[in-house]
């Protein structure tokens, strides 16, 4: 498959006044044309900043190194004007909290029209008609009337639909959806995910679906990257990730999923919390929470290496080189190799 976006060795340091704190430690990810890449990990693992940095949206406090290529062309460190041209046009992004992601003092119509003008040169009546068509496309009834309303007059789910319509306005090749359903309740969440699936199928755009919830990512993604402590710690096609998860962290995430078909059981969440970027342990950053960690895990950061027979499955865990972890008895994940359909 043709690579659309390629991130290589992306590193982010935040200027904290006196010192720099590294929040992202050399992340490499590829998105192929038309592909859905899921990105999971608990809050604070670096999921959002990876993609914000790729679009140059992190601001002046962030020092970024590494390479970001769009269709083979380097865009990391590109002039602001060039980046602005890509944003919303080639790569669109939607965010976690739709209601505060829309400008409260402008009407919906104006906010969509702005994108239409930027990327398709549309103004006036044609922009208006196209904006109405887009609202219709994302499942909002009474589109022409809605265009004259303000974000606060609509529910969170509606606002996320509007964000999606705005993202579609530039006819992007890639949509980055950063926790698009986290702020919404379960039914609305499912509707938004269905909408994204449908739009993607029709337009053929690639999708990066970011979530702290593996369940959200599981159904839609072709491939999943699991992030922890500012690194990608496992990456595989979705089937293989669920069939044979390598990293204890991934196993923990899978174990924490509610079991739809199986008997009811208590969800087993991973004990402990994600370390802050300035408090990472010396070796594997998951080691302090890991049930199978031992001394060697603290020695150095484990390399990201192929796992199992599959060429496309990678993991960064010393304990699971070449096969399943050896001491898995205490792991919550291993009794349930969940494979959602």
């Amino acid at each position: 498959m043709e690579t659309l976006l390629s991130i290589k060795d992306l590193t982010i340091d935040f200027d904290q006044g006196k010192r720099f704190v590294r929040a992202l430690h050399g992340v490499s990810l590829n998105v192929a044309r038309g592909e859905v890449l899921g990105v999971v990990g608990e809050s604070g693992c670096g999921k959002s900043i990876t993609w914000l940095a790729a679009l140059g949206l992190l601001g002046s406090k962030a020092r970024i190194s590494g390479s970001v290529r769009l269709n083979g062309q380097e865009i990391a460190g590109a002039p602001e004007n060039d980046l602005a041209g890509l944003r919303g046009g080639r790569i669109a992004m939607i965010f976690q909290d739709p209601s505060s992601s829309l400008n409260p003092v402008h009407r919906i119509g104006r906010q969509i029209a702005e994108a239409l003008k930027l990327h398709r040169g549309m103004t006036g009546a044609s922009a208006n008609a196209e904006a109405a068509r887009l609202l219709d496309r994302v499942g909002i009834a009474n589109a022409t009337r809605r265009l004259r309303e303000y974000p606060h007059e609509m529910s969170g789910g509606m606002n996320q639909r509007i964000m999606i319509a705005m993202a579609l306005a530039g006819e992007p090749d890639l949509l980055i959806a950063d926790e698009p359903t986290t702020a919404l309740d379960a039914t609305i969440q499912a509707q938004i995910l269905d909408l994204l699936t449908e739009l993607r199928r029709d337009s053929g755009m690639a999708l990066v679906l970011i979530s702290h919830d593996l369940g959200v990512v599981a159904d839609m993604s072709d491939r999943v990257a699991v992030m922890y402590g500012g690194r990608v710690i496992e990456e595989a096609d979705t089937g293989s990730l669920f069939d044979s998860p390598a990293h204890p962290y991934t196993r923990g995430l899978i174990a924490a999923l509610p079991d739809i078909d199986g008997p009811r059981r208590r969800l087993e969440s991973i004990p402990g919390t994600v370390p802050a970027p300035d408090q990472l342990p010396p070796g594997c950053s998951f080691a302090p929470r890991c049930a199978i960690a031992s001394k060697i895990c603290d020695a150095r950061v484990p390399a990201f290496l192929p796992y199992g027979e599959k060429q496309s499955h990678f993991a960064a865990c010393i304990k699971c080189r070449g096969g399943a972890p050896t001491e898995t008895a205490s792991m919550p994940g291993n009794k349930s190799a969940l494979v959602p359909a």
Partner: protein
Amino acid sequence: MVQYLLMKIFRALVTVTLIVSAAFVVLRLSGDPAIIILGPEAPPEAFEAFRRNWGLDQPIWVQYFKYFAAVFQGDLGNSMRDGRSALVVVGERIPLTLAITLPALFIKLAIGLPAGVMAALYRNTWVDRLIMMLSVAGFTVPSFVLGLVLAMIFAVWLGWLPSGGSDTWAHAVLPTVTMGLVGAAVIARFTRSAMLEVLGQPYIRTASAKGLLWRDVVRNHALPNAAIPTLTIIGFLVGSLVAGAVVVESVFSWPGVGRLLVNAVANRDLAVVQVILLLVGLTMVGANLAVDILYGIVDPRLRIKRLQAGS
């Protein structure tokens, strides 16, 4: 909406009444206008006549109710100093005060708003530090000190401008500039924080992610939102157009309402003090209402809420 405004007006009237009442009690109990105006050497009969004439011989609560009864009939009383209507005495000073406070308001906005916006846009750079240093200096130094320093430099040393009085337009320059600079410092600081608050909002990131250039993000998305809280402080400044010049008028002997107030308090010239307090109260209330109505116009969130709240 109408209901909401009526409620606000009612509350404001209660506030003004309380202020006027407090002033009445304090002025009446804190000194005898007869002695102050006639002088301590005047004959006892003169004192008695003066007190009888102004009703000062009656119990204070009788005076109080008589005063309010008169006010409700539109009679705000006369100045004890020269017997003229207090309204006229105050009224003839208003243009003089506005002659310095209006240009000062212009200076405040013309310097304060852009300075605050720039400081926020260039946060933590030398631009921001410089602007904030000046701003902090501007409102920690009392305006009479700044006034005296400016008078020292431009009147005493350079001899370019007069240091006090009101004979020519040149006399208005120093009081105006003093007030303008102090106000600009306050506005700059307020605008900066309003702007920073807005720049941190998710919709600003959305505007950038959409592909807008930064200057368009600022112009189309940040400024309109930051303008909303800034309205409050502008309303406050407009509300203090009449009374905000007390200190500066005293420093530069500018014969406006502020200086009249100081003199009237010293003389216990109650009717004049009360007219000024009412005037101040009413301009404040008026400005406040105007801000409220404007809020409803510029902030779509409030527009809806008020429509639902009011009838």
